[in-house]
């Protein structure tokens, strides 16, 4: 119980842990989708508070981790151009491409700006009409409405020097892919609370009925995650499979309708390659044809290059919950937060970074 003292809601957490223990009669494998949830689990040692039979495996919900290598290379190529200012969320800068990363391009004089909000990219474009401003638009459904709004605003302002390098991914097709694999171990899912804040519940109800698997929409605090685990265990022990919403304070049934509307106005669903996983049908967003003038890939004639991951990196298996970071021979030795081989070691939401940061598992090779 060493970590439980750190909770503000210690009493609630202790009650939840005790209740989970009293309800657990069988071993269960549960997956949290979102990398933010993975970090809460590792930070607070939640996995060690649970009964031995409950195994938490970590899902692909780290947008930085699943952005394909080719897309990083495209961003590197754009940022290396003297006429381009590349605008990005900070997490992307250290992600290794096939040859370089954005931080190295910046160190060599590339004009790369880190922003907190996509609207800052629009402001940069407005203030620098002589330069081409390319916004690196990545993220899941949580981020897509904001990125869509930036493109929408650029069009409204008539900006001719703003474009977006779009590499958006969406969650349900990835869950579907994981569940359709032979020998799938995961028996219940904690769905990502902020993705569902935007998208609502219906897509997850479809997954529940399609695969007869319990799903609980969960928040990001220790108590949220313990409660989500309890809800899953109770369903599994009862033999039921339903969608339940633990994160009711933010997630409504229909989600955020105005946010969905702007996404649908700017983006359309497309096939998308996920780093480490491969192409997943209908798993991403791209700009609609009416926003083609803002599509950096078309504007700069960027070509697909066939590139390969470092052979030693097992991020493909980590992102699918089939291996854990300490299972990797490079983990903590040739792959560290300071010198990462793969994206999950870079991102604040990457599973490898979570294990490395909290170092509770001895690095023994």
């Amino acid at each position: 119980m060493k970590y439980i003292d750190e909770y503000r809601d210690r009493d609630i957490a202790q009650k939840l842990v005790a209740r989970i223990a009293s309800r657990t009669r069988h071993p269960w494998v549960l997956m949290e989708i979102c990398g933010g949830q993975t970090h809460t689990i590792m930070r607070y040692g939640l996995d060690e508070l649970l009964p031995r039979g409950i195994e938490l495996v970590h899902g692909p919900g780290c947008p930085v981790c699943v952005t394909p290598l080719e897309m990083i290379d495209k961003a590197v190529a754009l940022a290396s151009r003297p006429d381009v200012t590349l605008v990005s969320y900070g997490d992307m800068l250290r992600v290794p491409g096939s040859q370089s990363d954005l931080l190295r391009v910046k160190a060599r004089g590339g004009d790369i700006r880190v922003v907190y909000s996509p609207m800052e990219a629009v402001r940069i474009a407005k203030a620098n009409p002589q330069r081409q401003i390319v916004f690196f638009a990545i993220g899941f459904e949580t981020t897509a409405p904001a990125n869509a709004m930036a493109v929408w605003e650029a069009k409204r302002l008539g900006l001719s020097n703003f474009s977006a390098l779009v590499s958006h991914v969406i969650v349900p097709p990835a869950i579907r892919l994981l569940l359709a694999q032979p020998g799938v171990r995961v028996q219940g899912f904690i769905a990502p609370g902020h993705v569902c804040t935007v998208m609502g519940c219906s897509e997850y109800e479809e997954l529940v009925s399609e695969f007869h698997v319990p799903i609980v929409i969960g928040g990001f605090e220790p108590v949220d995650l313990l409660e989500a685990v309890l809800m899953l265990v109770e369903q599994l022990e009862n033999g039921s499979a339903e969608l339940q919403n633990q994160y009711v304070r933010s997630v409504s049934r229909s989600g955020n309708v105005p946010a969905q509307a702007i996404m649908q106005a700017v983006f359309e669903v497309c096939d998308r390659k996920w780093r480490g996983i491969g192409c997943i049908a209908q798993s991403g967003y791209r700009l609609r044809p009416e926003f083609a003038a803002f599509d950096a890939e078309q504007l700069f004639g960027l070509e697909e290059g066939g590139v390969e991951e470092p052979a030693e990196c097992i991020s493909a298996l980590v992102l699918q919950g089939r291996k854990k970071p300490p299972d990797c021979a490079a983990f903590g030795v040739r792959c560290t937060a300071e010198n990462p081989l793969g994206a999950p070691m870079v991102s604040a939401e990457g599973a490898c970074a979570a294990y490395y940061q909290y170092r509770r598992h001895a690095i023994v090779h």
Partner: protein
Amino acid sequence: MCLAIPGKVLEIESSMGGRIGRVQFGGIVRQVQFTFVPEVRVGDFVMVHVGFAISVVDAEEAERTYQILQSMGLLEAELPPVETL
């Protein structure tokens, strides 16, 4: 990337691009877009992701989440200083 930070709405104004305003996150105040939460009022607590409010939440819950994110050192990552343009 999918984290959202709770903050208290201090003021709301309309601009050409939609409603914007100022939101207080502990000791930090930031401009936030309210385009996706048309129902928001001054004094409400909102969950903010990359500069956009994505939901309106209960005040007590918001305070609790804020404390936890602060203790995890995640507020800084989500709220870096605004770059001088």
